[in-house]
């Protein structure tokens, strides 16, 4: 087992350089270290100027996503050992503007997430005195998979369609829309379907499937998009054949 492993980290300091550059760091190799441990080691012991996002270290917060040897991963859940003998190339997530070093600009995703109304929509809220909306374990199971999304944006980074068409609403936003659509307490199905059937919605997807391949929580956004396409197509025929039906 090697003593050290080298990391080639993409640096971009807009006040210092016009173009991003790679910087090489030697860190101790430890079998139980993930990429994030190595980056934290760099920050604490070698170069305090390195900027990156992280928080929970346990695959829940979704903030430490980076490109590692060209693949989007959560750096807290990816072991150094996998990349022996190195060097390991660490870059900010693809398909997003870079603010600084490994920090990306995520405003676009936040705006798209909000657009799908990711909350329980009710036609009429029942008064508090009537108590909570009850749900059986079977009803929970319907949407549970899609509720596991941690908004880490790895799927946006892996999606070639998002790379080509930045207006595409994208995998996670659609999976999250599906999470609420399949929730029996929700009544916003039709509104979301209309938002997602627009030009930059589900039909931009060409089912490459990389979103589901890189998802660290097995959410399967590609599956959510396919199910949405079926619903949108049924809806399209319905409104064509029965235009008098409810809009």
């Amino acid at each position: 087992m090697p003593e050290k492993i080298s990391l080639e980290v993409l640096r971009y300091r807009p006040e210092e350089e016009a173009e991003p550059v790679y910087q090489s760091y030697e860190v101790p190799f430890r079998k139980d270290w993930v990429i994030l441990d190595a980056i934290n080691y760099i920050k604490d012991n070698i170069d305090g100027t390195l900027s990156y996002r992280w928080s929970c270290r346990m695959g829940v917060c979704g903030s430490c996503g980076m490109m590692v040897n060209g693949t989007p991963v959560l750096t807290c859940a990816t072991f150094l050992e996998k990349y022996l003998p190195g060097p390991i190339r660490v870059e900010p997530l693809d398909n997003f503007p870079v603010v600084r070093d490994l920090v990306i600009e995520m405003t676009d995703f936040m705006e798209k997430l909000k657009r799908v109304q990711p909350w329980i929509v009710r036609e009429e809220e029942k008064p508090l005195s009537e108590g909570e909306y009850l749900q059986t374990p079977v009803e929970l199971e319907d949407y549970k998979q899609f509720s596991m999304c941690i908004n880490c944006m790895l799927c946006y980074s892996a999606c070639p369609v998002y790379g080509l068409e930045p207006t595409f609403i994208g995998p996670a936003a659609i999976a999250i829309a599906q999470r609420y659509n399949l929730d029996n307490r929700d009544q916003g199905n039709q509104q979301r379907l209309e938002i997602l059937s627009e030009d930059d919605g589900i039909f931009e997807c060409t089912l490459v499937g990389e979103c589901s391949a890189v998802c660290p929580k097995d959410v399967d956004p590609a599956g959510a998009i396919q199910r949405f396409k079926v619903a949108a197509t049924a809806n399209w025929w319905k409104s064509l054949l029965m235009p008098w039906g409810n809009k």
Partner: protein
Amino acid sequence: MKKNIDPFWWGLFGAGGAISAISIPVLLFLNGLAIPLGWLEPPAYEDFFTLVKHPLTRLFLFALISLSLLHWAHRFRFTLYDGLQVKHLNELIAILCYGTAIAVTFVAGYILWRF
């Protein structure tokens, strides 16, 4: 609901994928392997002719041919669109792909009708 045509083409694409995935392996196995290799007794020409002449068979063949073509058209359209990055030719590509599929559908329909 905003009217755009995507669900229509996608629906045909999906139908074409489903019908060809289900039937083409069966047809290939029977006509391409089992019969030529003598695993199955080949049907008499007259029987086969009568089978294909049946309106239901012709309807099935028409659906299989046209939907498979429309499946191809949709997939190929996006392959060109994304693969060659020719965004500005979007309309032309769509017309060429769907147009070819529709034209061959008419030819297939004509042949099966006259069969």
